[in-house]
């Protein structure tokens, strides 16, 4: 209280001016505050001048206060005019404030004294230890209990969570199994028997008559522990195929030269690497497809062996274990074998066999499959369905056999008399004949340069027939000498040759026949070429024969000959060409050029010396020119005198 600055307390009233009037639009009109003179006048009216000197002091006191009133609010002036301090409304406020101020000053003083630490010191209030200290065991137990409750709650939550996760996984596995099952069902026939799911992978519903049941079982594979890492190829669905359809199989058709000994037949078990599975195919799909393939191969082989035994042919077929051997052509052997290997045998491939050249005819294997499927389809054709409905199944035409009284020949013609084996043998024969023909033509073409032989094979062939167009030409003279064009139709056992001039020749399967024929055609070509060349060069053809009856007899075909005369008639060239004897060219000179001219009295005119006289042979091998026709052209040019 002493020495501290006076605390200034300001009091402000809320309402400064009295509201005189509130207009209809909300504006307030205030009472204008009294001016100083008006104020004074108002106060003066209140002063009772009739009172004594006490009131003068009050008045004197009131006057300085009067001056302060201009600064202060009107409410305060009311309080001081009455001069009754006990009735001053701010009295209690002033008292409270004053007491608060006193307290604060005391506190401030105490704190400043305490700070010096000389006269007063602060001491902490000592706690009653025994009253607040609890035994540690109780604490432990209580802590344990609370922790236990918390832990139990957490455990319960965790258990629920793990249960739901496991359920989700189990559901997912089931869903996976179910979705896999759906996918399986979209591609394979399934049926439910009891609580097992069985499927059918045989071709019976597609028309096969093979008695194998072809039933596979679908197994659930959901017992694995999902916490461990799943294997790469995990699939919730597994299939169990019949044990005899295990592994994979294919039918190997090959043509070889006849083996001298029959000792080691029936041991064909060569195996080719299994085809790479496409990414994304399920394991069960691969397994089922492989098993179905094995079944089809077995059916094909069973059908072939049945026919091999039943059908009578000139050379009987040999059926040994997994191989059928037959002879399409003498000296040749066709072997059809069923190569079935289960998975275990892969390890036994350690025997160091030289990889034999692959003589497997893949086309025939494919054709076997196709023919089998064709046979299946025929079983299902609507021709078999009976009309009327109560009749038994059977071919439509066979039903007519009774009422129409067919005889044996007609019935026989109705039935299919060609089995699978016969068809495949025919195809094999054709393939072999075709390849041998190609080989013959190619070897001739490489061996003989003049004339040239060209072969144009047609792209579109039949299983039993192919065709090739053979052209024999001379290099450089293709446009002039194109008279030898042969169309070869290669059939199953014969080759039919159609010549450009319309001749048709049928050759057998012997390789030598074709070769001889082509050689004879080549020699004919040379002579034809001379004939064509003569036309171009202006020489006259005196005689031409495809098959001359003179000279040495050829062993292959016949020799042909042509004689051409120069434009002025002085020279003549005779050519005789045979396939074996080669070519012989003679030139006939005019009589005037011969050295020994027999003098005779008969011929008196000199003009007769221009006639052609003796002939001389040309050393053809010493003649210049790269081929026969070129040489001939040079010769003709040499013998044609310049004008």
């Amino acid at each position, binding site marked *: 209280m002493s020495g501290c600055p006076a605390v200034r307390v300001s009091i402000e009233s809320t309402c400064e001016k009295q509201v005189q009037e509130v207009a209809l639009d909300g504006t307030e009109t205030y009472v204008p505050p009294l001016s100083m003179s008006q104020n004074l006048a108002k106060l003066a009216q209140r002063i009772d001048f009739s009172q004594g000197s006490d009131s003068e002091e009050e008045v004197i006191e009131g006057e300085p206060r009067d001056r302060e009133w201009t600064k202060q609010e009107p409410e305060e002036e009311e309080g001081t005019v009455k001069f009754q301090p006990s009735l001053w409304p701010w009295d209690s406020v002033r008292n409270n404030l004053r007491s608060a101020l006193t307290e604060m000053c005391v506190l401030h003083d105490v704190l400043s004294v305490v700070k010096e630490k000389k006269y007063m010191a602060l001491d902490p209030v000592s706690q009653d230890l025994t009253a607040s200290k609890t035994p540690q065991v109780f604490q432990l137990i209580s802590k344990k209990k609370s922790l236990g409750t918390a832990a139990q709650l957490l455990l319960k939550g965790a258990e629920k969570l793990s249960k739901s996760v496991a359920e989700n996984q189990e559901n997912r596995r089931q869903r996976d199994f179910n979705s896999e099952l759906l996918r399986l069902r979209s591609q394979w026939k399934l*049926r439910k028997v009891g609580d097992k799911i069985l499927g059918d992978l045989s071709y*019976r*519903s*597609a*028309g096969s008559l093979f008695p194998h049941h072809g039933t596979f079982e679908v197994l659930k594979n959901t017992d694995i522990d999902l916490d461990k890492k799943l294997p790469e190829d995990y699939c919730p669905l597994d299939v169990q195929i019949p044990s005899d359809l295990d592994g994979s199989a294919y039918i190997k058709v090959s043509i070889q030269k006849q083996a001298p000994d029959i000792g080691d037949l029936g041991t064909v078990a060569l195996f080719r690497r299994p085809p790479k599975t496409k990414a994304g195919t399920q394991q069960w799909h691969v397994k089922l497809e492989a098993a179905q393939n094995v079944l089809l191969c077995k059916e094909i082989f069973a059908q072939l062996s049945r026919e091999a035994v039943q059908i009578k042919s000139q050379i009987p077929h040999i059926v040994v274990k997994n191989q059928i051997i037959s002879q399409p052509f003498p000296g040749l052997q066709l072997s059809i074998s069923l190569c079935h290997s289960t998975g275990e045998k892969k390890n036994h491939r350690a025997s160091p066999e030289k990889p034999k050249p692959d003589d497997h005819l893949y086309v025939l294997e494919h054709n076997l499959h196709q023919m089998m499927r064709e046979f299946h389809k025929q079983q*299902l*054709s*609507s021709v*078999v*369905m*009976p*009309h*009327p*409905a*109560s*009749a*038994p*199944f059977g071919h*439509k035409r066979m*039903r*007519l*056999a*009774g*009422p*129409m009284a067919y005889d044996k020949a007609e019935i026989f013609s109705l039935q299919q008399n060609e089995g699978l084996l016969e068809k495949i043998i025919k195809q094999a024969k054709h393939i072999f004949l075709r390849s041998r023909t190609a080989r013959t033509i190619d070897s001739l073409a490489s061996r003989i340069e003049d004339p040239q032989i060209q072969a144009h094979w047609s792209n579109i062939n039949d299983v039993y027939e192919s065709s090739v167009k053979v052209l024999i030409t001379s290099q450089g003279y293709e446009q002039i000498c194109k008279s030898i064009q042969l169309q070869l139709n290669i059939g199953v056992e014969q080759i039919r040759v159609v010549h450009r001039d319309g001749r048709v020749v049928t050759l057998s399967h012997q390789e030598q026949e074709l070769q001889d024929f082509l050689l004879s055609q080549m020699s004919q070509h040379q002579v034809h070429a001379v004939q064509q060349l003569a036309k171009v060069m202006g020489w006259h053809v005196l005689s031409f024969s495809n098959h001359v009856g003179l000279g040495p007899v050829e062993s292959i075909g016949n020799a042909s000959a042509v004689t051409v005369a120069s434009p002025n008639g002085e020279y003549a060239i005779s050519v005789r060409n045979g396939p074996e004897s080669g070519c012989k060219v003679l030139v006939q000179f005019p009589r005037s050029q011969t050295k020994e001219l027999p003098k005779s009295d008969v011929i008196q005119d000199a003009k007769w010396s221009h006639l052609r006289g003796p002939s001389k042979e040309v050393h053809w091998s010493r003649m210049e020119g790269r081929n026969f026709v070129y040489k001939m052209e040079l010769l003709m040019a040499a013998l044609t005198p310049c004008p």
Partner: protein
Amino acid sequence: MEAPPVTVMPVTGGTINMMEYLLQGSVYDQALESLLHRLRGLCDNMEPETFTDHELVYLLKGQQGNPFILRARRSLSHPTSPWHLRYLGQPEVGDKSRHALVRNCVDVAASHSLPEFLNEMGFRMDHEFVANGHMFRKGAMKIVVSKLSRILVPGNTENTERLSLSYLVELNVLAPAGQDNMSDDMRSFAEQLKPLVHLEKIDPSKQRH
């Protein structure tokens, strides 16, 4: 002139000894579509085959009690097909465990003069009807779903009236005598049709009144 010798011994072998295994059932008209779908899925994969047949049943009344019955059937949808003559024997009373009705069956194809021939032989036509429907096949089994219609004017197959509001479903197999394993296959096939149609063996002798 002697009459040519007639063999007294019965002819055996060949087509004479075929047995027919039969299971029958029926479905209402509303259920036909679903049945056809199911059969299409279960049977061999072929185009569905429809048929319209006209069957005549001939009786030969002998001195004995039981008349001899022959069934002559022709196709109305394939008029050039031959007629089919059928004899069905009595159902074999074998063990009760056999699942299908087994009876001797002789099938013969005949030319178009069959009705006159039968008339000349002494047979009299008992009744005739028209059947049309669908045929399915699974291996050796034949499944026929047919609607039978009564012929109002004898001889006129255009004017027919349906006999009932349902379709007759028959599953039959023709097999030589002695092969009994067909009935097991038939039963398992019938199981697969179970909720749609119940195929069971119905003894015709018990049906007659």
